[in-house]
């Protein structure tokens, strides 16, 4: 079992997301420490990309702010090295294929291993294109996270049976962003996944409130929240770490007794 799968051994996992470098990397490091301190089980670190086609306006704007502040892949690696002095929970990178491909697959993924990253999420790499990245991830013992969407239907078995770390279950059609309600029959999707694999399932896209988190955690093993956190950071900037910490604590509390 991987460190990522193991993170699901002690109850439901709250997985917060942050765009690295928004508004700057010092603030991101503080945010990550607050998240870890307040109950995050895994943290998703977003490496900004100029044209994030799977993101809604909130995270798109965070990507632009991060790139404008001079954030680069190498500077993010340095931040992670620093974080690893005291942050022990699993960390995964979330970015777009070109960021990894352009850096060099081998160079990027071997660096992940060296600095203590546990997994990689690339929303623009579907099952059919994963081999180029997965083969290198396997070599360096990094979990390549699979995504399953409401439209996956007959593809669920195929994707689930080859998944490792955890499975990112996309809650809704469309892009990332806060939603007032989630209408997909998540329970049926998770059930189908569970028939094919013991790999834990975490649900993301559209979740922002403790009530939504609780509802999702009742059917899955973990809950991923991105845009709601990025909104707090956009509003409070350098002063956001404590507020994000408080939010993470609240969300974790909402799912911890399940």
């Amino acid at each position, binding site marked *: 079992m991987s460190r990522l799968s193991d993170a699901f051994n002690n109850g439901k996992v709250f997985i917060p997301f942050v765009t690295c470098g928004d508004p700057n990397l010092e603030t991101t490091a503080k945010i990550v420490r607050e998240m870890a301190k307040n109950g995050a089980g895994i943290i998703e670190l977003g490496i900004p*990309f100029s*044209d994030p086609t799977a993101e809604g306006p909130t995270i798109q704007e965070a990507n632009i702010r991060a790139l404008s502040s001079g954030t680069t892949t190498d500077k993010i690696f340095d931040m992670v090295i620093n974080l690893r002095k005291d942050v022990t929970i699993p960390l995964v990178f979330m970015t777009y294929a070109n960021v990894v491909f352009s850096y060099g697959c081998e160079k990027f993924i071997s660096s992940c291993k060296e600095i203590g990253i546990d997994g990689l999420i690339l929303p623009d790499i579907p099952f059919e294109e994963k081999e180029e990245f997965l083969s290198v991830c396997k070599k360096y013992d990094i979990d390549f996270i699979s995504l399953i969407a409401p*439209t996956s239907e007959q593809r669920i078995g195929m994707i689930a049976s080859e998944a490792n770390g955890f499975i990112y279950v996309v809650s809704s059609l*469309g892009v990332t962003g806060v939603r007032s309600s989630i209408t997909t029959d998540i329970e049926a999707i998770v059930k189908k996944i569970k028939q094919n694999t013991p790999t834990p399932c975490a649900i993301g896209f559209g979740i922002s409130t403790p009530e939504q988190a609780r509802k999702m955690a009742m059917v899955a093993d973990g809950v991923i929240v991105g845009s709601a956190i990025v909104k707090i950071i956009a509003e409070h900037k350098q002063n956001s770490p404590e507020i994000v910490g408080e939010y993470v604590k609240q969300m974790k509390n909402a799912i911890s007794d399940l």
Partner: protein
Amino acid sequence: MQQNNGRFGIHGGQYIPETLMNAVIELEEAYNKFKNDPEFKKELEFLFNEYCNRPSRLYYAERMTKDLGGAKIYLKREDLNHTGAHKINNAIGQALLAKKMGKTRLIAETGAGQHGVATATAAALFNMECEIFMGEEDTKRQALNVYRMRLLGAEVHPVKTGTKTLKDAVSECMREWTSRIADTHYCLGSVMGPHPFPTIVRDFQAVISKEIKDQMLEKEGRLPDAVVACVGGGSNAIGSFYNFIDDKQVKLIGCEAAGKGINTFETAATISTGREGIFHGMKSYFCQDEYGQIAPVYSISAGLDYPGVGPEHAWLYDIGRAEYVAITDDEAVNAFEYLSRTEGIIPAIESSHALAQVIKIAPTMDKDRTIVVTLSGRGDKDCAQIARYRGEDISE
């Protein structure tokens, strides 16, 4: 079941979110079913001929030929198609396919507006809903086309993200498609994006080279020595090249937009200045920085103002079958004015990039040689902008 779909050498593929995978698989299955269906082919040919005004003329540009004093120049008049550009070939084809698939709504990106107009036209003809995504910057550069789309019943969404041009319109269209798939077909306008789009669009545009071949054999009794076309994503170019790929004696020349020059940051010449990457569903050449961030490209031509190129072009470049050159704004504007005065034909600023290359090479070729240049669209839409480029402010 590991697949390796839609590859042109190492280029192409399907680099899209899982949410869209079943949609492209469904599209591929439908296309494979209909592309050889006699009924579908008959309907498409009828629409091409009766509605789009095909076959388009292959016109001998005698004054231009004499003035340049070299190779004999033929213009493939895609500008005379209904809606004024080659874009209608693909839009009609995809709309017919979408209709057969039971889709009731078309969405599309557009740069110069020609593909948006073509899609809005097809949607009106087939009684489908239509929404067009266009960079806010381009809605200003091409205000007339925005009005045409609205007149045809389409809703136009100005895209305010990123550089507010074609690349951002494509991104926004992909986002829209992930949010509403069941009734919606994404009518992609160029030979780019995830498989099967580069193949579908190429097949619908290949009618251009099929006609050129027939027309040249009829007029000259032999194939042309060179075929020249402009390349943004590359749909009119691949359409002009496709049926000549196996005829090795025919030189294929694609003309990219150099903007203010390939040594400046204000350029959109992907093959000249880009490198291999993964973006907008495909592996191909892209203008990008050292960390893979997509570059904010520039060209006077909204239709060529794109940081990538279709995967089949990337492959034709790799194997040396086609040659790609970069044409600056200045050269294109000169060619725009030149054809207007010499032949009485106002070309699109996109097509003017191809004409500029012909102006360069025709004098270096013998008089018994022939060049076909694809006039991908007409230039009425560009007049106000070219006037501004020359320091004259005219109101439309």
